[in-house]
């Protein structure tokens, strides 16, 4: 199981703040996870179309090559705007 979190404008676009995902076979990286989520269609296509979307694995920033595995906490969000 993967804990997925969505923040800020992405959360509003998807209409979802979190979900628990049974990690499908063959998905080992952030990039593959993004492609999987985009394949849901509709507003989820943002995972394919948005270039600025950021990801974190277990609360640390992660690139597309970053590995994901069962038990991880994975978050997606737009570029940060604090301070």
């Amino acid at each position: 199981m993967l804990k997925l979190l969505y923040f800020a404008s992405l959360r509003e676009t998807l209409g979802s703040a979190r979900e628990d995902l049974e990690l499908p076979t063959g998905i080992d990286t952030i990039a593959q996870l993004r492609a999987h989520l985009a394949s849901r269609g509709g507003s989820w296509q943002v995972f394919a179309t948005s270039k600025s979307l950021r990801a974190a694995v277990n609360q640390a920033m992660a690139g597309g090559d970053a590995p994901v595995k069962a038990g991880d906490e994975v978050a997606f969000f737009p570029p940060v705007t604090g301070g």
Partner: protein
Amino acid sequence: MNEVSVQEADFDVGAETVALSAGDDGAGAVATFVGLVRGEGIRAMSLEHYPGMTEKALAEIVEQARQRWQLRRVRIIHRVGRLLPGDRIVFVGVSSSHRHDAFAACEFIMDYLKTRAPFWKKEETDAGARWVDARESDDTAAARWEGAD
């Protein structure tokens, strides 16, 4: 004392600044920064964050600053929730023996916080609510520390 706080409540700028050097007579320099909500046609601003990761990201930024400069105490407070124009958003304070280290670390922490800590701002305007776009100038500001000092 906790170096990093993420909270809805306002903070006491004077008390926080004084605490950076209190009882430490080796602290010759205290640099602070306060970020505030600007008006500019904004009625209010809501700050969302990623609980857990935020605190880790800020602690990591403090750690990097401590590796670059000789610092004594560091304090970061970042507010979340709904804020009005003129309200304080963030406090960064650094004490050091010498002023250059305090100034540099304080600005470094702000630049990194702006680009690496998971906060998001949503503005309420007369025309409705909108998420604030990240600014390229913030990336540029953070990038100039790479290889510097």
